[in-house]
Protein backbone atom coordinates (compact mmCIF):
# COMPACT_ATOMS: atom_id res chain seq x y z
CA UNK A 1 0.00 0.00 0.00
CA UNK A 2 1.28 3.43 -0.85
CA UNK A 3 -0.05 6.88 -0.30
CA UNK A 4 0.52 10.07 -2.15
CA UNK A 5 -0.67 13.58 -1.49
CA UNK A 6 -3.25 15.19 -3.68
CA UNK A 7 -1.02 17.90 -5.05
CA UNK A 8 1.84 15.72 -6.11
CA UNK A 9 -0.29 13.18 -7.94
CA UNK A 10 -2.00 15.88 -10.00
CA UNK A 11 1.28 17.30 -11.18
CA UNK A 12 2.75 13.85 -11.78
CA UNK A 13 0.05 12.96 -14.27
CA UNK A 14 -0.36 16.34 -15.87
CA UNK A 15 0.78 15.11 -19.27
CA UNK A 16 -1.49 12.11 -19.60
CA UNK A 17 -4.10 13.60 -21.92
CA UNK A 18 -7.68 14.43 -21.28
CA UNK A 19 -10.99 12.58 -20.97
CA UNK A 20 -14.30 14.24 -20.16
CA UNK A 21 -16.17 10.99 -19.56
CA UNK A 22 -15.35 8.75 -16.64
CA UNK A 23 -17.10 5.49 -16.02
CA UNK A 24 -17.36 3.49 -12.83
CA UNK A 25 -19.05 0.14 -12.73
CA UNK A 26 -19.42 -2.72 -10.28
CA UNK A 27 -20.02 -3.28 -6.58
CA UNK A 28 -23.36 -2.22 -5.21
CA UNK A 29 -21.65 -1.42 -1.89
CA UNK A 30 -19.56 1.34 -3.35
CA UNK A 31 -22.25 2.49 -5.75
CA UNK A 32 -24.09 4.93 -3.45
CA UNK A 33 -20.85 6.60 -2.41
CA UNK A 34 -19.49 7.06 -5.89
CA UNK A 35 -22.80 8.03 -7.31
CA UNK A 36 -23.37 10.81 -4.80
CA UNK A 37 -19.81 12.01 -5.24
CA UNK A 38 -20.22 12.00 -8.99
CA UNK A 39 -23.38 14.07 -8.84
CA UNK A 40 -22.00 16.60 -6.38
CA UNK A 41 -18.78 16.86 -8.41
CA UNK A 42 -20.78 17.44 -11.56
CA UNK A 43 -23.02 19.88 -9.74
CA UNK A 44 -20.27 22.08 -8.40
CA UNK A 45 -18.17 22.09 -11.55
CA UNK A 46 -20.43 21.51 -14.55
CA UNK A 47 -17.52 21.86 -17.00
CA UNK A 48 -13.97 20.65 -16.64
CA UNK A 49 -12.41 24.08 -16.98
CA UNK A 50 -13.98 24.94 -13.63
CA UNK A 51 -12.08 22.03 -12.07
CA UNK A 52 -8.78 23.17 -13.45
CA UNK A 53 -8.35 26.14 -15.73
CA UNK A 54 -5.92 24.13 -17.88
CA UNK A 55 -8.73 21.71 -18.79
CA UNK A 56 -10.96 22.29 -21.85
CA UNK A 57 -14.53 23.54 -21.40
CA UNK A 58 -16.10 20.09 -21.78
CA UNK A 59 -19.06 18.93 -19.75
CA UNK A 60 -18.22 16.90 -16.71
CA UNK A 61 -19.67 13.47 -17.22
CA UNK A 62 -19.08 10.84 -14.59
CA UNK A 63 -21.03 7.66 -14.83
CA UNK A 64 -21.54 5.14 -12.05
CA UNK A 65 -23.32 1.85 -12.73
CA UNK A 66 -24.10 -0.83 -10.20
CA UNK A 67 -23.75 -4.49 -11.12
CA UNK A 68 -21.69 -6.32 -8.53
CA UNK A 69 -18.01 -6.81 -7.87
CA UNK A 70 -17.66 -9.50 -10.54
CA UNK A 71 -19.23 -7.29 -13.16
CA UNK A 72 -16.91 -4.50 -12.05
CA UNK A 73 -13.80 -6.57 -12.69
CA UNK A 74 -14.98 -7.94 -16.01
CA UNK A 75 -16.15 -4.54 -17.21
CA UNK A 76 -12.75 -3.12 -16.39
CA UNK A 77 -11.10 -5.98 -18.25
CA UNK A 78 -13.36 -5.40 -21.31
CA UNK A 79 -12.87 -1.68 -21.22
CA UNK A 80 -16.61 -1.15 -20.74
CA UNK A 81 -15.65 1.08 -17.83
CA UNK A 82 -12.64 3.02 -16.65
CA UNK A 83 -12.83 1.92 -13.05
CA UNK A 84 -14.28 -1.25 -11.61
CA UNK A 85 -15.80 -1.02 -8.15
CA UNK A 86 -14.96 -4.01 -5.99
CA UNK A 87 -15.99 -4.76 -2.43
CA UNK A 88 -13.58 -7.59 -1.69
CA UNK A 89 -9.94 -8.41 -2.26
CA UNK A 90 -9.06 -9.29 -5.82
CA UNK A 91 -8.38 -12.94 -6.46
CA UNK A 92 -5.00 -14.01 -7.81
CA UNK A 93 -6.38 -14.93 -11.19
CA UNK A 94 -8.10 -11.55 -11.43
CA UNK A 95 -4.89 -9.81 -10.52
CA UNK A 96 -3.20 -11.72 -13.29
CA UNK A 97 -5.72 -10.97 -15.99
CA UNK A 98 -5.85 -7.29 -15.09
CA UNK A 99 -2.07 -6.92 -15.31
CA UNK A 100 -1.11 -3.32 -14.63
CA UNK A 101 -3.75 -2.10 -12.24
CA UNK A 102 -4.14 0.22 -9.28
CA UNK A 103 -6.47 -0.23 -6.33
CA UNK A 104 -8.00 2.85 -4.74
CA UNK A 105 -9.27 1.84 -1.35
CA UNK A 106 -12.06 4.17 -0.37
CA UNK A 107 -13.55 2.53 2.66
CA UNK A 108 -13.61 -0.39 4.96
CA UNK A 109 -16.72 -2.41 5.55
CA UNK A 110 -17.05 -4.61 8.55
CA UNK A 111 -19.57 -7.36 9.13
CA UNK A 112 -21.30 -7.21 12.48
CA UNK A 113 -22.78 -10.35 13.92
CA UNK A 114 -26.21 -8.98 14.69
CA UNK A 115 -29.45 -10.21 16.10
CA UNK A 116 -32.82 -8.56 16.46
CA UNK A 117 -32.72 -6.18 19.42
CA UNK A 118 -35.66 -7.98 21.02
CA UNK A 119 -33.67 -11.17 21.26
CA UNK A 120 -33.22 -11.98 24.98
CA UNK A 121 -29.69 -13.12 24.17
CA UNK A 122 -28.67 -9.44 24.03
CA UNK A 123 -29.22 -9.15 27.76
CA UNK A 124 -27.41 -12.36 28.58
CA UNK A 125 -24.19 -12.17 26.64
CA UNK A 126 -22.38 -9.39 24.82
CA UNK A 127 -19.68 -11.49 23.26
CA UNK A 128 -19.68 -14.43 20.86
CA UNK A 129 -16.56 -16.37 20.01
CA UNK A 130 -15.69 -17.71 16.60
CA UNK A 131 -16.72 -21.25 17.50
CA UNK A 132 -20.19 -20.26 18.63
CA UNK A 133 -20.71 -18.09 15.58
CA UNK A 134 -19.52 -20.89 13.35
CA UNK A 135 -21.78 -23.40 15.09
CA UNK A 136 -24.76 -21.11 14.58
CA UNK A 137 -24.00 -20.34 10.98
CA UNK A 138 -23.15 -23.86 9.85
CA UNK A 139 -26.33 -25.27 11.29
CA UNK A 140 -24.92 -27.17 14.29
CA UNK A 141 -27.08 -25.07 16.55
CA UNK A 142 -30.60 -24.83 15.18
CA UNK A 143 -32.60 -23.39 18.07
CA UNK A 144 -31.90 -20.51 20.39
CA UNK A 145 -32.07 -22.63 23.55
CA UNK A 146 -29.08 -24.53 22.23
CA UNK A 147 -27.12 -21.28 22.28
CA UNK A 148 -28.24 -20.43 25.78
CA UNK A 149 -30.59 -22.69 27.74
CA UNK A 150 -32.54 -19.75 29.10
CA UNK A 151 -33.71 -18.81 25.61
CA UNK A 152 -36.95 -20.13 24.12
CA UNK A 153 -37.06 -23.12 21.82
CA UNK A 154 -37.24 -21.01 18.67
CA UNK A 155 -35.57 -21.80 15.38
CA UNK A 156 -32.54 -19.71 14.53
CA UNK A 157 -33.07 -17.81 11.30
CA UNK A 158 -29.72 -17.21 9.67
CA UNK A 159 -29.36 -14.31 7.24
CA UNK A 160 -26.35 -14.03 4.95
CA UNK A 161 -25.39 -12.37 1.67
CA UNK A 162 -25.31 -14.10 -1.67
CA UNK A 163 -22.51 -16.54 -2.39
CA UNK A 164 -20.65 -14.47 -4.90
CA UNK A 165 -20.65 -11.22 -2.97
CA UNK A 166 -17.59 -10.04 -1.11
CA UNK A 167 -19.25 -10.37 2.28
CA UNK A 168 -19.77 -14.09 1.94
CA UNK A 169 -16.14 -14.58 1.15
CA UNK A 170 -14.91 -12.45 4.03
CA UNK A 171 -17.13 -14.24 6.49
CA UNK A 172 -16.08 -17.60 5.12
CA UNK A 173 -12.41 -16.78 5.50
CA UNK A 174 -12.51 -15.11 8.89
CA UNK A 175 -15.12 -17.16 10.69
CA UNK A 176 -16.22 -20.28 8.91
CA UNK A 177 -12.86 -21.63 7.86
CA UNK A 178 -13.49 -24.96 6.19
CA UNK A 179 -17.08 -25.22 7.42
CA UNK A 180 -19.95 -24.28 5.16
CA UNK A 181 -22.77 -21.97 5.98
CA UNK A 182 -26.01 -23.91 6.39
CA UNK A 183 -28.03 -24.15 3.22
CA UNK A 184 -31.14 -23.03 5.05
CA UNK A 185 -29.66 -19.58 5.53
CA UNK A 186 -31.50 -16.82 3.72
CA UNK A 187 -29.42 -14.91 1.22
CA UNK A 188 -30.19 -11.25 0.87
CA UNK A 189 -29.45 -9.22 -2.21
CA UNK A 190 -28.09 -6.23 -0.32
CA UNK A 191 -26.87 -5.31 3.14
CA UNK A 192 -29.86 -3.08 3.73
CA UNK A 193 -32.18 -5.90 2.88
CA UNK A 194 -30.25 -8.14 5.23
CA UNK A 195 -30.57 -5.60 8.02
CA UNK A 196 -34.28 -5.17 7.28
CA UNK A 197 -34.74 -8.92 7.43
CA UNK A 198 -33.10 -9.15 10.85
CA UNK A 199 -35.04 -6.14 12.08
CA UNK A 200 -38.30 -7.79 10.99
CA UNK A 201 -37.60 -11.18 12.47
CA UNK A 202 -37.14 -11.56 16.25
CA UNK A 203 -35.28 -14.86 15.93
CA UNK A 204 -32.86 -13.83 13.23
CA UNK A 205 -29.12 -13.58 13.22
CA UNK A 206 -26.94 -12.40 10.36
CA UNK A 207 -23.84 -10.52 9.38
CA UNK A 208 -25.17 -7.07 8.68
CA UNK A 209 -22.59 -4.71 7.28
CA UNK A 210 -21.40 -2.02 9.70
CA UNK A 211 -22.93 0.69 7.52
CA UNK A 212 -26.28 -1.01 7.27
CA UNK A 213 -26.15 -1.70 11.00
CA UNK A 214 -25.61 1.92 11.99
CA UNK A 215 -28.23 3.08 9.50
CA UNK A 216 -30.82 0.67 10.79
CA UNK A 217 -30.19 1.79 14.34
CA UNK A 218 -30.44 5.47 13.53
CA UNK A 219 -34.01 5.76 14.73
CA UNK A 220 -33.94 3.43 17.71
CA UNK A 221 -32.09 0.20 18.32
CA UNK A 222 -33.52 -2.58 16.19
CA UNK A 223 -30.33 -4.57 15.72
CA UNK A 224 -27.85 -5.65 18.29
CA UNK A 225 -24.25 -6.43 17.33
CA UNK A 226 -22.15 -8.71 19.51
CA UNK A 227 -18.51 -8.40 20.27
CA UNK A 228 -16.61 -10.99 18.31
CA UNK A 229 -13.89 -12.67 20.32
CA UNK A 230 -14.09 -9.76 22.72
CA UNK A 231 -13.69 -7.03 20.14
CA UNK A 232 -16.57 -4.67 19.62
CA UNK A 233 -17.15 -3.46 16.08
CA UNK A 234 -16.46 0.27 16.28
CA UNK A 235 -14.86 2.76 13.98
CA UNK A 236 -11.60 2.45 15.80
CA UNK A 237 -11.41 -1.31 16.00
CA UNK A 238 -12.28 -1.60 12.36
CA UNK A 239 -9.82 1.08 11.33
CA UNK A 240 -6.94 -0.44 13.20
CA UNK A 241 -7.87 -3.90 12.00
CA UNK A 242 -8.46 -5.48 15.41
CA UNK A 243 -12.02 -6.24 14.43
CA UNK A 244 -11.20 -8.85 11.84
CA UNK A 245 -14.43 -9.46 9.93
CA UNK A 246 -13.92 -6.68 7.44
CA UNK A 247 -13.29 -6.12 3.79
CA UNK A 248 -11.97 -3.35 1.61
CA UNK A 249 -14.31 -1.26 -0.51
CA UNK A 250 -12.39 0.09 -3.45
CA UNK A 251 -12.26 0.86 -7.10
CA UNK A 252 -9.67 -0.47 -9.48
CA UNK A 253 -8.22 1.22 -12.53
CA UNK A 254 -5.83 0.14 -15.25
CA UNK A 255 -2.71 2.11 -16.09
CA UNK A 256 -2.25 5.65 -14.86
CA UNK A 257 -5.22 7.96 -14.53
CA UNK A 258 -5.69 10.82 -16.95
CA UNK A 259 -5.70 14.36 -15.58
CA UNK A 260 -9.43 14.54 -15.40
CA UNK A 261 -9.68 11.14 -13.77
CA UNK A 262 -7.05 12.14 -11.26
CA UNK A 263 -8.99 15.29 -10.50
CA UNK A 264 -12.05 13.28 -9.65
CA UNK A 265 -10.06 10.71 -7.69
CA UNK A 266 -8.66 13.55 -5.65
CA UNK A 267 -12.17 14.73 -5.04
CA UNK A 268 -13.11 11.26 -3.80
CA UNK A 269 -10.24 11.29 -1.39
CA UNK A 270 -10.97 14.82 -0.14
CA UNK A 271 -12.75 15.87 3.02
CA UNK A 272 -15.97 15.85 1.01
CA UNK A 273 -15.45 12.24 0.02
CA UNK A 274 -14.65 11.38 3.58
CA UNK A 275 -17.97 12.82 4.71
CA UNK A 276 -19.90 10.99 2.05
CA UNK A 277 -18.27 7.69 2.97
CA UNK A 278 -19.20 8.25 6.58
CA UNK A 279 -22.69 9.36 5.71
CA UNK A 280 -23.17 6.07 3.93
CA UNK A 281 -22.22 4.19 7.04
CA UNK A 282 -18.82 3.00 5.92
CA UNK A 283 -15.53 3.70 7.53
CA UNK A 284 -13.22 5.81 5.40
CA UNK A 285 -9.96 4.04 4.65
CA UNK A 286 -8.06 7.26 4.10
CA UNK A 287 -7.29 10.56 5.69
CA UNK A 288 -8.78 13.44 3.72
CA UNK A 289 -6.41 14.73 1.05
CA UNK A 290 -4.48 11.51 0.70
CA UNK A 291 -5.11 9.09 -2.14
CA UNK A 292 -4.89 5.55 -0.85
CA UNK A 293 -3.58 3.32 -3.60
CA UNK A 294 -1.96 -0.04 -3.96
CA UNK A 295 -0.72 -1.76 -7.10
Amino acid sequence: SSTSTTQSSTSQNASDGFKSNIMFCGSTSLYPIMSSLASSFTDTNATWDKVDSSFPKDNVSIYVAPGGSGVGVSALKDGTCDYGMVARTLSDSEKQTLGDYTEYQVAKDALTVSVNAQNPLCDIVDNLDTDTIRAIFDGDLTTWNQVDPSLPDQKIQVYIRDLSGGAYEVFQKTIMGDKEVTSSATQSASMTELATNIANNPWAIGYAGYGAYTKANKSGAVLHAFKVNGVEPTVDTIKDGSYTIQRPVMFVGKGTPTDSEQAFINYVFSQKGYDVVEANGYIPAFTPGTVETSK
Partner: protein
Amino acid sequence: MALNAQHRKRLSEHADTVCSLAIRLIVAASCVIVLLVFVYIAYEAFPFFQAVSLSDFLGGTKWMPIDFGNGTSYGIANFIGATLMTSGLAVAFALLIAIGAALFLSCSASTRLRQMIYPFIDMLAGVPSVIFGFIGLVVVVTFFINKGIAQSGCVLAASLVLAVMILPFLVTSMSESIVKVKKQCLPASQALGVDRWYAVAHSILPLSLKFFIPSIVMAFGRAMGETMAVLMIIGNANVAPTLLGKGESIASLIALEMGGAVRGSMQYHALFAAGFILMVLIFVIDIAMSRLLKKMQK
Protein backbone atom coordinates in the same frame (compact mmCIF):
# COMPACT_ATOMS: atom_id res chain seq x y z
CA MET B 1 -93.00 -30.66 -20.49
CA ALA B 2 -94.30 -28.36 -17.87
CA LEU B 3 -91.18 -26.27 -17.82
CA ASN B 4 -92.81 -22.95 -17.24
CA ALA B 5 -93.74 -23.80 -13.68
CA GLN B 6 -90.20 -24.67 -12.64
CA HIS B 7 -89.01 -21.64 -14.45
CA ARG B 8 -89.74 -18.81 -12.14
CA LYS B 9 -88.45 -20.71 -9.14
CA ARG B 10 -85.14 -21.44 -10.87
CA LEU B 11 -84.68 -17.86 -11.78
CA SER B 12 -84.75 -16.73 -8.21
CA GLU B 13 -82.81 -19.51 -6.56
CA HIS B 14 -80.22 -19.48 -9.29
CA ALA B 15 -77.49 -17.24 -10.47
CA ASP B 16 -78.30 -13.74 -9.48
CA THR B 17 -77.92 -14.87 -5.90
CA VAL B 18 -75.17 -17.49 -5.65
CA CYS B 19 -73.03 -16.71 -8.67
CA SER B 20 -73.44 -13.02 -8.34
CA LEU B 21 -72.48 -13.17 -4.70
CA ALA B 22 -69.40 -15.27 -5.34
CA ILE B 23 -68.26 -12.99 -8.09
CA ARG B 24 -68.93 -9.93 -6.01
CA LEU B 25 -66.87 -11.41 -3.20
CA ILE B 26 -63.96 -12.05 -5.52
CA VAL B 27 -64.27 -8.59 -6.98
CA ALA B 28 -64.29 -7.13 -3.51
CA ALA B 29 -61.21 -9.15 -2.66
CA SER B 30 -59.36 -8.01 -5.76
CA CYS B 31 -60.37 -4.41 -5.13
CA VAL B 32 -58.97 -4.68 -1.62
CA ILE B 33 -55.72 -6.10 -2.94
CA VAL B 34 -55.33 -3.46 -5.58
CA LEU B 35 -56.28 -0.72 -3.19
CA LEU B 36 -53.83 -2.05 -0.65
CA VAL B 37 -50.99 -1.59 -3.10
CA PHE B 38 -52.12 1.89 -4.06
CA VAL B 39 -52.83 2.99 -0.55
CA TYR B 40 -49.51 1.68 0.68
CA ILE B 41 -47.62 3.60 -1.93
CA ALA B 42 -49.69 6.73 -1.45
CA TYR B 43 -49.37 6.46 2.32
CA GLU B 44 -45.60 6.22 2.20
CA ALA B 45 -45.45 9.03 -0.33
CA PHE B 46 -47.67 11.35 1.68
CA PRO B 47 -45.10 12.78 4.15
CA PHE B 48 -42.98 13.74 1.19
CA PHE B 49 -45.73 15.62 -0.57
CA GLN B 50 -46.38 17.47 2.64
CA ALA B 51 -42.77 18.56 2.88
CA VAL B 52 -41.83 19.32 -0.70
CA SER B 53 -43.83 21.30 -3.22
CA LEU B 54 -45.08 19.42 -6.24
CA SER B 55 -43.50 21.89 -8.63
CA ASP B 56 -40.07 21.46 -7.07
CA PHE B 57 -40.54 17.74 -7.26
CA LEU B 58 -41.77 17.49 -10.83
CA GLY B 59 -39.90 20.47 -12.21
CA GLY B 60 -36.58 20.22 -10.44
CA THR B 61 -33.59 18.55 -12.01
CA LYS B 62 -31.40 18.18 -8.98
CA TRP B 63 -31.75 15.01 -6.95
CA MET B 64 -29.77 14.97 -3.73
CA PRO B 65 -31.88 13.21 -1.15
CA ILE B 66 -29.15 12.98 1.48
CA ASP B 67 -27.55 16.06 2.88
CA PHE B 68 -23.84 15.82 2.23
CA GLY B 69 -23.32 19.42 3.11
CA ASN B 70 -25.02 21.12 0.17
CA GLY B 71 -28.54 20.58 1.39
CA THR B 72 -31.13 18.29 -0.12
CA SER B 73 -33.19 18.66 -3.23
CA TYR B 74 -35.70 16.37 -4.81
CA GLY B 75 -36.21 17.11 -8.49
CA ILE B 76 -37.27 14.24 -10.69
CA ALA B 77 -37.84 16.03 -14.00
CA ASN B 78 -34.92 14.23 -15.61
CA PHE B 79 -36.08 10.88 -14.34
CA ILE B 80 -39.56 11.46 -15.68
CA GLY B 81 -38.07 12.44 -19.02
CA ALA B 82 -35.86 9.38 -19.15
CA THR B 83 -38.72 7.09 -18.18
CA LEU B 84 -41.01 8.46 -20.87
CA MET B 85 -38.28 8.50 -23.47
CA THR B 86 -37.04 4.98 -22.82
CA SER B 87 -40.43 3.37 -22.65
CA GLY B 88 -41.82 5.41 -25.53
CA LEU B 89 -38.95 4.39 -27.76
CA ALA B 90 -39.15 0.80 -26.56
CA VAL B 91 -42.85 0.63 -27.39
CA ALA B 92 -42.21 2.20 -30.78
CA PHE B 93 -39.44 -0.25 -31.65
CA ALA B 94 -41.38 -3.19 -30.30
CA LEU B 95 -44.50 -2.19 -32.22
CA LEU B 96 -42.62 -1.98 -35.47
CA ILE B 97 -41.35 -5.49 -35.06
CA ALA B 98 -44.43 -6.86 -33.36
CA ILE B 99 -46.83 -5.79 -36.11
CA GLY B 100 -44.68 -7.48 -38.71
CA ALA B 101 -44.24 -10.63 -36.71
CA ALA B 102 -47.91 -10.73 -35.73
CA LEU B 103 -48.95 -10.31 -39.36
CA PHE B 104 -46.63 -13.10 -40.37
CA LEU B 105 -47.89 -15.40 -37.64
CA SER B 106 -51.54 -14.67 -38.25
CA CYS B 107 -51.66 -14.26 -42.01
CA SER B 108 -48.70 -16.03 -43.59
CA ALA B 109 -48.01 -18.89 -41.22
CA SER B 110 -50.26 -21.91 -41.03
CA THR B 111 -52.13 -22.56 -37.81
CA ARG B 112 -49.69 -25.35 -37.17
CA LEU B 113 -46.58 -23.23 -37.60
CA ARG B 114 -48.16 -20.54 -35.46
CA GLN B 115 -48.82 -22.99 -32.66
CA MET B 116 -45.23 -24.16 -32.95
CA ILE B 117 -43.79 -20.67 -32.69
CA TYR B 118 -45.83 -19.49 -29.70
CA PRO B 119 -43.87 -21.53 -27.11
CA PHE B 120 -40.65 -19.90 -28.27
CA ILE B 121 -42.18 -16.49 -27.84
CA ASP B 122 -43.39 -17.37 -24.38
CA MET B 123 -39.92 -18.62 -23.59
CA LEU B 124 -38.56 -15.21 -24.41
CA ALA B 125 -41.19 -13.69 -22.13
CA GLY B 126 -39.97 -15.80 -19.27
CA VAL B 127 -36.29 -14.89 -19.45
CA PRO B 128 -35.50 -13.14 -16.16
CA SER B 129 -34.94 -9.45 -16.56
CA VAL B 130 -31.53 -9.68 -14.95
CA ILE B 131 -30.39 -11.77 -17.91
CA PHE B 132 -31.77 -9.21 -20.31
CA GLY B 133 -29.94 -6.56 -18.36
CA PHE B 134 -26.76 -8.53 -18.49
CA ILE B 135 -27.01 -9.17 -22.20
CA GLY B 136 -27.82 -5.52 -22.72
CA LEU B 137 -24.78 -4.48 -20.78
CA VAL B 138 -22.36 -6.98 -22.25
CA VAL B 139 -23.59 -7.07 -25.83
CA VAL B 140 -25.49 -3.90 -26.65
CA VAL B 141 -23.63 -1.35 -24.55
CA THR B 142 -20.26 -2.85 -25.40
CA PHE B 143 -21.18 -2.76 -29.07
CA PHE B 144 -22.26 0.87 -28.80
CA ILE B 145 -19.03 1.82 -27.05
CA ASN B 146 -16.82 -0.09 -29.41
CA LYS B 147 -18.47 1.43 -32.46
CA GLY B 148 -18.24 4.85 -30.87
CA ILE B 149 -22.01 5.27 -31.01
CA ALA B 150 -22.24 6.08 -27.33
CA GLN B 151 -19.76 6.55 -24.59
CA SER B 152 -21.59 4.49 -22.01
CA GLY B 153 -24.89 2.90 -21.29
CA CYS B 154 -27.53 5.07 -22.90
CA VAL B 155 -31.23 5.62 -23.37
CA LEU B 156 -31.19 4.06 -26.83
CA ALA B 157 -29.54 0.86 -25.61
CA ALA B 158 -32.00 0.60 -22.75
CA SER B 159 -34.98 1.10 -24.99
CA LEU B 160 -33.73 -1.49 -27.46
CA VAL B 161 -33.41 -4.10 -24.76
CA LEU B 162 -36.72 -3.05 -23.27
CA ALA B 163 -38.29 -3.44 -26.70
CA VAL B 164 -37.13 -7.03 -26.84
CA MET B 165 -38.57 -7.59 -23.39
CA ILE B 166 -42.07 -6.38 -24.23
CA LEU B 167 -42.00 -7.92 -27.69
CA PRO B 168 -43.30 -11.38 -26.74
CA PHE B 169 -46.39 -10.00 -25.06
CA LEU B 170 -47.14 -7.67 -27.95
CA VAL B 171 -46.59 -10.31 -30.63
CA THR B 172 -48.78 -12.90 -28.95
CA SER B 173 -51.65 -10.63 -28.12
CA MET B 174 -51.56 -8.84 -31.45
CA SER B 175 -51.43 -11.97 -33.54
CA GLU B 176 -54.31 -13.44 -31.55
CA SER B 177 -56.34 -10.33 -32.25
CA ILE B 178 -55.49 -10.40 -35.93
CA VAL B 179 -56.42 -14.07 -36.22
CA LYS B 180 -59.87 -13.28 -34.84
CA VAL B 181 -60.40 -10.34 -37.16
CA LYS B 182 -59.07 -12.33 -40.08
CA LYS B 183 -61.59 -15.10 -39.58
CA GLN B 184 -64.28 -12.47 -39.80
CA CYS B 185 -62.95 -10.44 -42.73
CA LEU B 186 -60.82 -12.53 -45.00
CA PRO B 187 -63.61 -14.54 -46.66
CA ALA B 188 -65.46 -11.38 -47.65
CA SER B 189 -62.23 -9.95 -49.02
CA GLN B 190 -61.46 -13.05 -50.97
CA ALA B 191 -64.93 -13.10 -52.41
CA LEU B 192 -64.20 -9.64 -53.81
CA GLY B 193 -61.01 -10.92 -55.36
CA VAL B 194 -58.54 -8.61 -53.63
CA ASP B 195 -55.21 -10.05 -52.74
CA ARG B 196 -54.17 -11.04 -49.25
CA TRP B 197 -52.01 -8.04 -48.44
CA TYR B 198 -54.57 -5.57 -49.68
CA ALA B 199 -57.03 -7.25 -47.35
CA VAL B 200 -54.50 -7.02 -44.55
CA ALA B 201 -53.81 -3.35 -45.16
CA HIS B 202 -57.36 -2.22 -45.79
CA SER B 203 -59.56 -4.35 -43.59
CA ILE B 204 -57.74 -6.70 -41.25
CA LEU B 205 -55.23 -4.25 -39.78
CA PRO B 206 -57.62 -1.31 -39.45
CA LEU B 207 -60.13 -3.52 -37.69
CA SER B 208 -57.49 -5.05 -35.41
CA LEU B 209 -56.21 -1.66 -34.35
CA LYS B 210 -58.69 -1.13 -31.57
CA PHE B 211 -57.81 -4.50 -30.09
CA PHE B 212 -54.15 -3.52 -30.13
CA ILE B 213 -54.59 -0.46 -27.97
CA PRO B 214 -55.11 -2.22 -24.63
CA SER B 215 -52.06 -4.39 -25.28
CA ILE B 216 -49.98 -1.40 -26.24
CA VAL B 217 -51.05 0.49 -23.17
CA MET B 218 -50.19 -2.43 -20.95
CA ALA B 219 -46.83 -2.87 -22.67
CA PHE B 220 -46.18 0.81 -22.09
CA GLY B 221 -46.93 0.40 -18.42
CA ARG B 222 -44.67 -2.60 -18.16
CA ALA B 223 -41.88 -0.78 -19.94
CA MET B 224 -42.18 2.15 -17.57
CA GLY B 225 -42.10 -0.11 -14.55
CA GLU B 226 -39.32 -2.42 -15.69
CA THR B 227 -36.45 -2.16 -13.29
CA MET B 228 -33.51 -4.51 -13.39
CA ALA B 229 -32.73 -4.48 -17.07
CA VAL B 230 -33.06 -0.74 -17.52
CA LEU B 231 -31.06 -0.16 -14.38
CA MET B 232 -28.12 -2.02 -15.79
CA ILE B 233 -28.11 -0.37 -19.19
CA ILE B 234 -29.40 3.16 -19.07
CA GLY B 235 -26.36 4.69 -17.43
CA ASN B 236 -28.11 6.00 -14.34
CA ALA B 237 -27.10 9.60 -14.36
CA ASN B 238 -29.34 12.46 -13.41
CA VAL B 239 -28.97 14.38 -16.64
CA ALA B 240 -31.49 15.51 -19.21
CA PRO B 241 -31.97 12.33 -21.22
CA THR B 242 -30.76 12.23 -24.81
CA LEU B 243 -30.90 9.35 -27.23
CA LEU B 244 -27.23 8.47 -26.97
CA GLY B 245 -26.66 9.91 -23.55
CA LYS B 246 -27.29 8.58 -20.12
CA GLY B 247 -30.47 8.84 -18.22
CA GLU B 248 -32.13 7.38 -15.18
CA SER B 249 -35.64 6.06 -15.10
CA ILE B 250 -37.92 6.37 -12.11
CA ALA B 251 -37.97 2.61 -11.66
CA SER B 252 -34.20 2.39 -11.60
CA LEU B 253 -34.00 5.36 -9.25
CA ILE B 254 -36.25 3.50 -6.85
CA ALA B 255 -34.41 0.22 -7.25
CA LEU B 256 -31.04 1.88 -6.76
CA GLU B 257 -31.88 3.90 -3.71
CA MET B 258 -34.60 1.92 -2.00
CA GLY B 259 -32.01 -0.52 -0.73
CA GLY B 260 -29.98 2.18 0.92
CA ALA B 261 -32.69 4.50 2.11
CA VAL B 262 -33.33 4.62 5.81
CA ARG B 263 -36.93 3.74 6.45
CA GLY B 264 -38.92 6.78 7.45
CA SER B 265 -36.32 9.21 6.11
CA MET B 266 -37.25 11.86 3.62
CA GLN B 267 -35.34 9.95 0.94
CA TYR B 268 -37.49 6.90 1.61
CA HIS B 269 -40.67 8.90 1.30
CA ALA B 270 -39.36 10.64 -1.79
CA LEU B 271 -38.78 7.29 -3.47
CA PHE B 272 -42.36 6.29 -2.81
CA ALA B 273 -43.47 9.66 -4.09
CA ALA B 274 -41.54 8.94 -7.28
CA GLY B 275 -43.29 5.59 -7.49
CA PHE B 276 -46.59 7.36 -7.04
CA ILE B 277 -45.77 9.75 -9.86
CA LEU B 278 -44.87 6.78 -12.03
CA MET B 279 -48.31 5.33 -11.46
CA VAL B 280 -49.95 8.64 -12.20
CA LEU B 281 -47.94 8.86 -15.43
CA ILE B 282 -49.11 5.43 -16.50
CA PHE B 283 -52.66 6.37 -15.65
CA VAL B 284 -52.49 9.55 -17.69
CA ILE B 285 -50.97 7.80 -20.69
CA ASP B 286 -53.63 5.17 -20.42
CA ILE B 287 -56.44 7.68 -20.49
CA ALA B 288 -54.83 9.54 -23.36
CA MET B 289 -54.47 6.38 -25.39
CA SER B 290 -58.06 5.32 -24.93
CA ARG B 291 -59.19 8.82 -25.88
CA LEU B 292 -57.12 8.42 -29.00
CA LEU B 293 -58.74 5.07 -29.66
CA LYS B 294 -62.19 6.58 -29.37
CA LYS B 295 -61.24 9.38 -31.75
CA MET B 296 -59.86 6.86 -34.21
CA GLN B 297 -63.02 4.82 -34.16
CA LYS B 298 -65.03 7.83 -35.19
